[in-house]
């Protein structure tokens, strides 16, 4: 603001010193304001009025009538164009002459505006003749005129009912193909796994241990903490409800059955799906993106043996262990809360747990672990192989791997639940 006012007051000066005083009365020492070259050029040909005060660096151009023709003054650049374009658009007539002698700067955007003005006038049967064109401006206008884009518009067809049906059909067929590909991946995994029985030397033990560390060991803290908190919540909620019936002791059964049978393993699988499916997809996907997987194939290394088997096998091994950790820490959380809230001592909790809870609940829980592990591992690896040549598809595949694997884990848990209920287990 101050710069602009100073600029209005002294358009020809290079720099000026302004003694500023703030409202508080503290004087600021000299402030030197320098005008860039451009602004002085503009100010000599055009005087902006107060309504469009420009910051330093802003550029302006004007279209002025001169006798029977027009003259373009100041700057005709991309920054000046928004203000200048309406004036150029209003120009109409048979033979327009436009003098460029007073033009100080012209860039490609300005040259484009002049060239599109010419095209517009010629379409309506008129013409545009430029006068007093400076040589470098002329060269630029010629260059732009040569390069004027010629739109090739392809007519957009309206969406018809058959097109919509086609889209639905394609989506259905696509999801069918997706399921088929997952089964192919499972088959590939099993086939490679069994081929290790015949050729144990090919097995990559180091890779397996590395992935067990990544997938299992590094996930222990988060799984244990989450399960502990779930145990606490269950005990607390159960206590509030069961106290109404004087049946506080049944909180032990509540915690034990829900954690051992369902929650321990399900929540572990969900956490692992979020952590591991995404990391599988990202790792395999970035290798796919940089053509590393193609390189493996040309070197006669089987990507399934090297990449998929160690990862999925690591999940198969570690997910049940993580589930066990989740069960223990969930029970521990529940027992602690039961002690604090209901006064059920740990000893009593343990006795009640061992007497009343059948071991089959634990079994029902653990049966699901390998299935969840396979689902997560296969979806993660499959999504990684689906990554294309760009970084965007890597991100898309990673997030879809997480969503799909969590969804599939929950669906599988629901199916197990129905199955066990029907079988009376």
């Amino acid at each position, binding site marked *: 603001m101050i710069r602009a006012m100073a600029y209005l007051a002294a358009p020809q000066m290079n720099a000026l010193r302004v003694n500023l005083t703030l409202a508080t009365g503290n004087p600021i020492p000299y402030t030197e304001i320098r005008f860039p070259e451009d602004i002085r050029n503009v100010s000599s040909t055009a005087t902006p009025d107060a309504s469009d005060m420009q910051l330093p*660096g802003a550029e302006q151009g004007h279209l002025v009538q001169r006798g029977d023709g027009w003259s373009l003054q100041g700057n005709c*650049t*991309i*920054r000046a*164009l*928004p*203000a200048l*374009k309406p004036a150029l658009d209003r120009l109409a007539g048979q033979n327009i002459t436009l003098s460029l002698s007073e033009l100080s700067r012209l*860039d*490609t*955007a300005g040259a*484009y505006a002049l060239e*599109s003005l010419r095209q517009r006038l010629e379409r309506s049967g008129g013409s545009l003749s430029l006068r007093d064109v400076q040589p*470098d401006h002329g*060269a*630029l206008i*010629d*260059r*732009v005129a040569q*390069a*004027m*884009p*010629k*739109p*090739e518009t392809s007519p957009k067809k309206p969406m018809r009912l058959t097109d919509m049906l086609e889209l639905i059909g394609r989506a259905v067929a696509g999801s069918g193909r997706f399921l088929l590909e997952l089964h192919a991946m499972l088959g590939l995994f099993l086939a490679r796994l069994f081929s290790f029985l015949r050729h144990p030397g090919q097995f990559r033990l180091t890779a397996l241990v590395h992935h067990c560390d990544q997938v299992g060991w590094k996930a222990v803290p988060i799984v244990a903490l989450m399960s502990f908190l779930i145990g606490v919540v269950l005990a607390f909620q159960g206590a509030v409800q069961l106290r109404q019936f004087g049946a506080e002791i049944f909180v032990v059964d509540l915690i034990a059955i829900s954690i051992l049978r369902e929650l321990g393993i399900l929540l572990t699988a969900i956490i692992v799906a979020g952590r591991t499916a995404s990391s599988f997809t990202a790792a395999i996907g970035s290798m796919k993106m940089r053509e590393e997987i193609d390189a493996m194939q040309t070197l006669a290394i089987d990507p399934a043996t090297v990449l998929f088997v160690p990862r999925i096998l690591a999940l198969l091994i570690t997910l049940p262990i993580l589930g066990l950790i989740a069960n223990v820490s969930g029970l521990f959380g529940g027992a602690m809360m039961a002690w604090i809230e209901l006064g059920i001592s740990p000893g009593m909790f343990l006795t009640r747990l061992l007497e009343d809870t059948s071991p089959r609940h634990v079994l029902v829980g653990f049966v699901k672990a390998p299935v969840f592990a396979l689902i997560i591992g296969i979806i993660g690896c499959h999504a990684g192989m689906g990554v*294309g*040549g*760009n*970084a*965007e598809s890597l991100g898309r595949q990673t997030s879809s791997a997480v969503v799909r694997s969590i969804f599939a884990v929950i669906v599988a848990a629901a199916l197990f639940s129905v199955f066990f209920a029907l079988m009376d287990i």
Partner: protein
Amino acid sequence: MAADPVIRLRGIRNQFGPAVVHDDLDLDLYRGEVLGVVGGSGTGKSVLLRCIAGLRPPQAGQIEIFGQDALNCSEASRREIDARMGVMFQDGALFSSLTVRENVEVPMKNIKGLDAGLRRELADLKISMSGLPYAAGGKSPSELSGGMRKRAGLARALALDPEIVFLDEPTAGLDPIGASAFDELIKALSESLGLTVFLVTHDLDTLHATCDRIAVLAEKRVMYTGTMADMLHVEHPWVHEYFHGPRARAAIDTLERTN
């Protein structure tokens, strides 16, 4: 060409840990020239480019761009300097989630009052000026070949008509026809738009075809600057090998034949 340096580097020092890339490096870039920067692998050509473009501050030294101290200025004046410069990265560095046209429009979005229709038309103009067909504007970068991505990167670098353009290995990875077409494009654009070009390259043909002046990076500084003809008489072993090696001779021969 008047002696009007738009970029002045004095005593630049760049180092990564213990490895010193540049030490006491001086370089001037004059208005309107095409300066080719050559040097062996690891002599820090790209580091120098990143250093001037403001992507990596040097450990010591002075950088003056358009007469302003580019290292110790306010953020606003640095942005003003940046708006007058354009950078084309090695593989175009296009935003992969946008189409080519949207990529070229990105720098124009900072201009107040420029409506979307005009912005689109200007983007189409830049795309066509950098030698891409109209249909390329609607494609996403991953659908383009390497050469087309470079052209699209150039179109984005030129979106605001910068005064200085930095080109990082513009012809690397292009076939000879594409590479020489790109050389001509750079030459033609630099003449008609009055561009000052800072060009990092390994390509001797590009040096012959486009550069007014060549700067040789060796021994952590700019060892020699001069025209192509000057370079042929330099005694320094590396420079001699570079400009007299079998590939250089072939390039010079072709150039002489075409002239």
